[in-house]
């Protein structure tokens, strides 16, 4: 009989050991670095997949560390295992892809170390049941994302993008910290399971603070409204990193947080509606922005924001299973799209879709794979994106959720189909004006892409074991088992599905009929103009970043680096402490 404890430890610690090992080997042995990174990430992935058979609810590992932080506890319920499998499997595939993509790059040690650290931190974030530890891992993932987005640190745009990601997620981290401190103040423990099962005992106003704090944290992490602008700027990273951030390790954290704490906050007036609104606004705005973007990776980034909006909306609508299932689908097809985009960019050397076109002839394999991912993103049956999106829309109709939000989400599904078609068309079909020199696609790239392509076509078959696992191990969330036949029957026979399919088909047709829809296009111009300016949110986010930077600059003068001043500060601080003690505080 397999034990779960060693599996948890392996999947937690192995990535970190790997990070250390790859770092220590040194950049002179890049072949060994490639090999080690692949081996360590694959071990972690296998260990987390094996957890599927031995999941348990409740705390299973506990390291006492003294009073102030509570025990460092780890739990392996359905949500945690689910996310940990996504993080490690997609992470391992991204690393395998990197072997070709990063071949010949400098400073591979820094690259692979941070990737492995990133995976390990995400593992910790989803497996721990200690809120303080969760916050720590939360911040480690933010740090890794910063380091990897600005991996090309001689490019000022990359550095600025990394800085932006770091600051925006830190702003959200404050919300999580607030919630953690409040939980500790009122229950004397950081234990999440304890809090979830006793949340009714907490004072109402404290719960409200926590609920909105968590919402801010999740919105910042998942690049939701109003923090959505950091994710497109994170596109300066190498493509495998984009895949990692978008599909495996970073943005899923926010949706996970909302799903994890949903039972405690669902009774709070207005909270579920706010969550749905955040999801809807992100989905809608990002879809419109994706429609006017010309950078291939930017289109994919906006589509991530939009799809995450669907997941957040699903949590708000009470469809925890639907949201997590879409998270799985999205992880697969988005990782696939990003890696395929990486293969394209690697081959043609540009990211501007206007310079591409008719690449399908030269790269039939990539076109085939990219089309699978695009179909899933657009919600075309029978790929996994179709099933999970239908489940979300169904959840939006039930439970007495507002109809107008549902209708907007339906409209966004059409927009998604439209911009996906536009993207595919501009890259693989149509005409190319400039002559491009095309490199072949590497073997490791093909392996990762084929694996992901198979996943996109098949992960929806896993609905039964996943829902069963969640039902058994998450008693508070009240998730019902959904067998495969039941899901297929529900989806196929629901009229909502056919409406959604019609909308999606309409979206695709809109692209092909774009010439005859001249008038609509004209009417769309002002929206397109505003969308290119990202609806003014760019300015708000810029303001936050500039304030942070200038505050840092002015505080810098405190660090004189001169011993005389430092001694003087110590003296002043001592006097203040004595004065405080003297007043009897």
């Amino acid at each position, binding site marked *: 009989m397999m034990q779960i404890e060693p599996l948890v430890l392996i999947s937690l610690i192995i990535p970190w050991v790997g990070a250390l090992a790859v770092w220590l080997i040194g950049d002179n042995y890049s072949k060994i670095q490639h090999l080690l990174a692949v081996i360590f990430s694959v071990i972690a992935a296998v260990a987390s997949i094996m957890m599927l058979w031995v999941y348990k609810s409740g705390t299973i590992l506990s390291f006492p560390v003294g009073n102030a932080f509570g025990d460092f506890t780890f739990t392996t319920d359905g949500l945690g295992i689910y996310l940990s499998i996504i993080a490690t499997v997609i992470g391992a595939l991204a690393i395998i892809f990197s072997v070709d993509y990063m071949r010949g790059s400098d400073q591979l040690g820094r690259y692979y170390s941070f990737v492995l650290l990133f995976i390990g931190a995400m593992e910790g974030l989803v497996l721990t049941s200690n809120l303080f530890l969760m916050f720590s891992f939360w911040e480690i993932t933010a740090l890794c994302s910063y380091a990897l987005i600005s991996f090309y640190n001689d490019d000022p745009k990359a550095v600025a993008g990394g800085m932006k990601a770091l600051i925006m997620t830190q702003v959200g981290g404050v919300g999580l910290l607030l919630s953690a401190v409040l939980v500790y103040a009122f229950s004397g423990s950081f234990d999440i399971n304890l809090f979830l099962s006793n949340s009714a005992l907490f004072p109402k106003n404290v719960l409200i603070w926590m609920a909105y704090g968590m919402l801010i944290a999740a919105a910042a992490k998942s690049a939701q409204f109003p923090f959505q602008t950091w994710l497109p700027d994170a596109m300066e990273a190498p493509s495998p990193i984009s895949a990692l951030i978008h599909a495996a390790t970073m943005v899923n954290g926010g949706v996970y947080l909302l799903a994890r704490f949903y039972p405690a906050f669902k009774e709070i007036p207005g909270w579920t509606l706010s969550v749905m609104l955040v999801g809807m606004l992100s989905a809608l705005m990002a879809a419109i922005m994706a429609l006017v973007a010309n950078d291939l990776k930017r289109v994919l980034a906006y589509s991530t924001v939009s799809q995450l909006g669907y997941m957040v909306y699903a949590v708000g609508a009470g469809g925890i299973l639907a949201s997590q299932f879409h998270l799985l689908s999205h992880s697969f097809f988005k990782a696939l799209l990003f890696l395929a985009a990486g293969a394209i960019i690697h081959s043609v050397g540009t990211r501007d879709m206007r310079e591409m076109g008719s690449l399908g002839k030269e790269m039939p394999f990539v076109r085939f794979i990219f089309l699978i991912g695009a179909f899933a993103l657009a919600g075309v049956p029978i790929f996994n994106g179709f099933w999970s999106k239908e489940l979300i829309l169904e959840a939006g109709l039930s439970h007495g959720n507002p109809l107008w939000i549902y209708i907007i989400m339906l409209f966004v599904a059409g927009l998604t189909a439209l911009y996906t078609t536009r993207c595919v068309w501009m890259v693989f079909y149509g005409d190319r004006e400039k002559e491009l020199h095309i490199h072949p696609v590497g073997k490791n790239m093909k392996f990762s892409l084929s694996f992901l392509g198979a996943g996109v076509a098949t992960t929806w078959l896993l609905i039964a074991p996943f829902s069963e696992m969640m039902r058994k191990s998450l008693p508070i969330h009240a998730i019902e088992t959904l067998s495969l036949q039941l899901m297929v029957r529900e989806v196929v026979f629901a009229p909502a599905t056919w409406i959604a399919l019609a909308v999606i088909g309409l979206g695709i047709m809109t692209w092909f009929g774009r010439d005859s829809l001249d008038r609509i296009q004209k009417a769309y111009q002002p929206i397109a103009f505003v969308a290119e300016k990202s609806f003014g949110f760019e300015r708000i986010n810029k303001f936050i970043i500039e304030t942070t930077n200038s505050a840092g600059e002015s505080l810098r003068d405190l660090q004189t*680096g*001169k*011993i*005389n001043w430092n*001694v*003087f500060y110590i*003296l002043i601080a001592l006097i203040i402490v004595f004065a405080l003690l003297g007043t009897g505080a």
Partner: protein
Amino acid sequence: MNLSPAMIVFLAVIGLFGIGLYCLLITRNLIRVVIALQIMVKGAMLALIFTGQLNSQPSLGQSMALTVIVADTILAVIGLALAVQVKRHVGSLDLKDLSSLKR
């Protein structure tokens, strides 16, 4: 003015510590910094012996002071050795020249 012996010792402690602290605050020369630390520690040592006396545990205070003497000697040795190396590498003992990372 008539000072009790305890008051004299107390003033000596404050005076030694104050002189050392003042020296530490104003000097930029590395050797002088070491000397300033020495003077401060001497004041602290005197304070230890003094409190031992006041609490009628003189041997405890004195043994603490002995420990401090040992630590203090090591500090002086290492500090001066560092100063020698700094002089060799940087060419100056000024603390301002040491901070090469500052803009």
